[in-house]
């Protein structure tokens, strides 16, 4: 962020007082207007494997930089004006998170299409079937989506899927303000932490998804506990906690131990209010449990850490939460657990698998994609390292409140429990982000002198622009594998018209806008899941073997009704993420055509659909 010195004068103009406010409003709105007029120049079809940033015109990048610097100047004025900071944050959320909705033809991200399909199933059938897949064992979010879609008179949840990231990120703003406000009265720290959160939330879990909604519940629960149920001084706690037996440095023991009477925060509210607030927290958690597999455990980890370290006065809450989760898992997810329990138990404590799935396997694919992944890892390491420095500095300056440190550490427990399909590190990043953002903010602005030298000013300005650049590449670096075209959607709609219910639909890779309708009426297969593709040699899949596997899968479809669909986004996905070499899906298409075993039934907009000829692929 820029410095107070810069805030006071920019080109000889004061940025304090009403004139300064007017200048900053003009900068923010002007930058947003410039961003808006450059939108038509963004052509996702020309995107490279570096993602959206590769097709952003220079004027758009300048607009984003000016808006970010204007936010920095706003936060370094002598007195931070909340409405001005709020204006900047709202504009930043719109321009950073709303960009795909405005430049792409149809909703992005294949999983959002699938989620819309599950909501559609519930709306049509009025029930869930746990045997279809895991989603139906945690259907809370989809039930809510089905209810909202029908009550709002919409045809599909895809009608609002585009704007989900903007909606969810604006939703997070309220609890974030409460969370930061619970531990500091310094407005500059609060709003800087908010800025770091939004410039650091490149994880992309805010699409139309259960995790996006339940993350809001997580933030609200944490906010309530921090504000209304803070630490209670307890001189007996060290003996009961047996912290002295742990091989921890004295300072760390003291920090994690029970609060002294001087560091304890006075609880707010009457007993009636506090009872009602506990009930509200339980209701929020109860709605989270059937909605998402992971979030309830992240909540329990955070609340449990606070309770164990005597930093939260609602000591029975983790037990209540544990009972709710256990009851749901034991009684309502039987269909899923019966087939997956053994695998899940095997994965507990398997750190090697977690490391492989979360880091190593993500480094494959095109050179640009590997660069994006490395940048993400670098950004993560940098933010976490700076957060540790911030926490230590805060501690040296007399900060006794260890609650944020506990909340930042708690999610890491989950890394040892589950690789979560290679996504656990990403999820941990998201759940620690608010606290990391806070420590970074304290490092940047807390206790700093009113007036900084030009070097510090330049360094802080460069840091905010670095965060912005990192966000653009880290968040939208995989955009080629997330974007779809209207022509592809037309091809998928045509597929559902051509293929009678009960057919097997086969795609080259998982990346296409399907499953948004008739979720349960078709069988879905992927070429990339075939044994010959999964166990390919380093040179790439052997197409004759792949063709053999493919025809076998399609031949075994009920009534022989099987259709193969290939689209541009599938090719982009394979080329971007691997593990097959670039062009593998194109080679498969050529092999399919050359085999003469398939009848083409549709072609258009880079998409093709084939049906297996009767009698083809029979084993002799």
């Amino acid at each position: 962020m820029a410095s107070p010195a810069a805030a006071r004068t920019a080109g000889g103009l004061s940025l304090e007082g009403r004139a300064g406010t007017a200048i900053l409003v003009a900068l923010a709105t002007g930058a947003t207007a410039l961003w808006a007029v450059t939108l038509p120049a963004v052509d996702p079809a020309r995107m490279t494997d570096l993602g959206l940033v590769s097709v952003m015109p220079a004027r758009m990048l300048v607009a984003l930089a000016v808006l970010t610097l204007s936010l920095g100047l706003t936060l370094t004025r002598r007195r931070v004006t909340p409405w001005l900071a709020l204006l900047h944050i709202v504009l930043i959320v719109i321009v950073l998170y709303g960009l795909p909705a405005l430049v792409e033809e149809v909703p992005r991200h294949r999983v959002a299409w699938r989620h819309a399909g599950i909501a559609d199933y519930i709306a049509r059938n009025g029930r869930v079937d746990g045997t279809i897949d895991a989603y139906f064992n945690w259907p809370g979010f989809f039930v809510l989506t089905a209810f909202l879609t029908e009550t709002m008179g919409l045809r599909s949840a895809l009608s609002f899927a585009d704007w989900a990231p903007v909606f969810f990120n604006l939703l997070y703003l309220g609890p974030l303000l409460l969370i930061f406000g619970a531990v500091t009265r310094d407005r500059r720290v609060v709003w800087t932490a908010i800025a770091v959160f939004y410039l650091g939330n490149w994880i992309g879990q805010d699409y139309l998804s259960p995790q996006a909604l339940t993350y809001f519940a997580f933030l609200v629960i944490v906010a309530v506990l921090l504000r209304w149920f803070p630490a209670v001084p307890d001189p007996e706690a060290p003996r009961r906690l047996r912290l002295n037996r742990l091989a921890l440095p004295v300072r760390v023991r003291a920090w994690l131990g029970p609060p002294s009477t001087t560091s304890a925060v006075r609880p707010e509210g009457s007993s009636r209010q506090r009872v009602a607030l506990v009930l509200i927290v339980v209701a929020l958690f109860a709605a989270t449990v059937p909605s998402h597999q992971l979030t309830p455990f992240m909540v329990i980890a955070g609340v449990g850490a606070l309770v164990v370290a005597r930093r939260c006065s609602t000591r029975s809450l983790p037990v209540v939460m544990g009972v709710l989760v256990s009851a749901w898992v034991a009684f309502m997810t039987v269909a899923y657990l019966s087939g997956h329990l053994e695998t899940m138990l095997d994965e507990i404590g398997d750190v090697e698998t977690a490391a492989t799935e979360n880091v190593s396997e993500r480094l494959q694919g095109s050179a640009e994609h590997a660069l994006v992944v490395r940048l993400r890892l670098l950004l993560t390491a940098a933010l976490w390292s700076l957060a540790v420095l911030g926490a230590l500095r805060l501690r040296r300056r007399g900060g006794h409140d260890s609650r944020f440190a506990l909340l930042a550490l708690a999610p890491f427990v989950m890394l040892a429990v589950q690789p979560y399909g290679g996504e656990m590190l990403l999820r941990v990043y998201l759940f620690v982000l608010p606290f990391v953002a806070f420590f970074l903010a304290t490092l940047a602005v807390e206790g700093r002198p009113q007036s900084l030298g030009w070097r510090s000013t330049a360094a802080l300005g460069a840091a905010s622009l670095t965060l912005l650049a990192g966000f653009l590449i880290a968040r939208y670096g995989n955009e080629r594998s997330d974007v779809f075209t209207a022509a592809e959607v037309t091809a998928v709609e045509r597929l559902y018209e051509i293929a009678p219910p009960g057919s097997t639909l086969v795609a080259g890779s998982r990346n296409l806008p399907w499953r948004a309708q008739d979720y349960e009426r078709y069988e879905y297969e992927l070429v990339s899941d075939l044994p010959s593709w999964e166990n390919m040699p380093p040179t790439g899949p052997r197409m004759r073997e792949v063709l053999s596997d493919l025809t076998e899968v399609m031949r075994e479809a009920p009534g022989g009704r099987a259709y193969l669909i290939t689209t541009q986004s599938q090719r982009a996905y394979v080329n971007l993420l691997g593990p097959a070499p670039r062009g593998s899906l194109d080679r498969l298409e050529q092999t399919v055509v050359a085999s003469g075993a398939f009848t083409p039934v549709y072609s258009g907009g880079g998409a093709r659909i084939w049906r297996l000829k009767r009698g083809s692929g029979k084993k002799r």
Partner: protein
Amino acid sequence: MTDRSRIPPIAVLAGAALAALVVWGNVAPALRGPVVLAFLLVGPGMALVHPLRLRDRLAELCLAVALSIALDTLFASAFLYARGWSPDGILAALIAVAVLAAGSDLLAGASLRRRPEPT
């Protein structure tokens, strides 16, 4: 209850009436989405959170939105698992909760105002 603190329950009652009108009265079909979404995002939760008198508008609004979403999810799930899926029925139940809670809040506020000042 001050005049200003009567605004949230009155807004909840108005929101409930509007939601009922656009869904069942077919009034202003173009506004159906925004009106229903606004009510379901804020209404049921605000009706229950406002009587707590938290004296912090941001906290009240955050809790109202979070609780509304939780109630929407729990009510919809309850209808589903009770094999009685009916979006109209779920909306009616949420409107009933909001109207009862906001109405009680208003009545409790009115009775407080009528109570004589201690001498």
